[in-house]
Structures are given as C-alpha cells and as structure tokens.
C-alpha cells in the first residue's frame, strides 16, 4: 500500500510549495525516512536546481515531523528547532528528482534532542546536517 502523504499524518504547519516532504516512507522509534518529489520545471517551482539551503530546510522539517511522531502515540509532541550544525553539501537535486530524507535520533540530553539528517538523490548523499530540537514549547515562546 502506498505510504500516505505527510500532511495527512503529521500536523507540521508547512504547506506547499514550502513543504519539502511528500511522503513518510518508514518510521521507527529511532529513525524515519521521508521522500520529496522535487517538481519538474513548470510546476509550482521554476527552479533549475533545488537550492542547497532548501535541503537543510527539508531535514529540519523531517526532524520536526519525526520528533512529533516519535513517542508513537496519536498525540504529537511539540518542539522547537534549536540549532542546525555541521552542514555539508556534496551534490544537487534537479527538477523531477526524488529526494530521500533520512533522520536518525542521535542523543537526548534533557529537553534537547540531537538528530542526524541526510538527503539522498539517486543513491548519492547530497547534504547532511546535525539538527537539535527542543522538546515542548517554552512559555516565553
């Protein structure tokens, strides 16, 4: 059975064209796999390349989505993006490419959750980053 579109299962606030997750492909307690179909030119985007920085945004969205899923209950956990570090770019995606976004929980330290993110296209990693999400929403936020 095809996996459901992300918006149908996750209440992340992002909407197309600024939602860079199309489907949740796999999800477990420590990791999740998302995909994103980068539209062909003439669709919603008229870009010749998927900007590298948007791969970081895709990883951040995937981290937020995974964080919301990861307690396994129907009640999603809220969180704030705290930091993005150790970003590396090693390739680019073109219109029509299917991006695979991998998220793996690396360490929990109190309210902070560190996740490793990777973006792959055609079996090649094009970007990676270390993302930290803070659990819950502080009252001052």
């Amino acid at each position, binding site marked *: 059975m095809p996996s459901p579109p992300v918006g149908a299962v996750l209440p992340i606030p992002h909407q197309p064209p600024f939602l860079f997750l199309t489907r949740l492909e796999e999800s477990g307690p420590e990791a999740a796999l998302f995909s994103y179909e980068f539209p062909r030119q003439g669709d919603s985007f008229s870009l010749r390349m998927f900007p590298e920085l948007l791969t970081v945004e895709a990883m951040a969205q995937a981290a937020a989505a995974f964080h919301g899923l990861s307690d396994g209950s129907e009640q999603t956990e809220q969180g704030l993006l705290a930091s993005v570090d150790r970003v590396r770019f090693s390739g680019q995606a073109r219109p029509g490419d299917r991006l695979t976004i991998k998220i793996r929980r690396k*360490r929990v330290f109190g309210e902070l959750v560190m996740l490793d993110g990777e973006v792959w296209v055609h079996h090649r990693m094009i970007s990676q980053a270390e993302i930290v999400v803070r659990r819950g929403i502080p009252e001052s936020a």
Partner: protein
Amino acid sequence: MAEVSPEEVRELLLEALNLGEQYEPSEVPLDGQLFGDDGLGLDSLDALQLAVALEEHYQVTVNKDDGPTVFRSVQTIAQHINAHQT
C-alpha cells in the same frame, strides 16, 4: 588505560564546540567555569555537543542530571572521564 589529561579534554572541547578560532587553549583555564557569564558562556546546546563528543571520543556518558557537576570545568570533565572510562 592511560589517564586522560585536562589539556587533552580542553583541545576536544575547543574542537567540538568550534571555539578553536575564538580561543587559544591557554585562554581556557583548566579549573575555570565553562557555563554562565563568569565563564566561557557555554549554554545547553554546548552541553549537548560536549556530551556527544565525550561519548564518541571516550565512550563515556554524561547524564543530564550530572551535567552541571561534570561540565563545571575542563578539570571536572577530565575527572569524570577517568572515573568512568572502561
């Protein structure tokens, strides 16, 4: 297993937190406070980065509750590593 020196821990701290361009090792006293305005000004994100670096380099875990004690200074981090490294 050989004892880990505070100087070695200081090098790791500067590298893990990308502080190498900001501080010379000699500018970070081994017994100086790391967190707060009186110290290096590290914050909770730095604590997380440090905890991960210690796990990766020395296979030593620091729990959140122990963080304030272990991360008080370079010296206390080295003591924690030497007490818990297997």
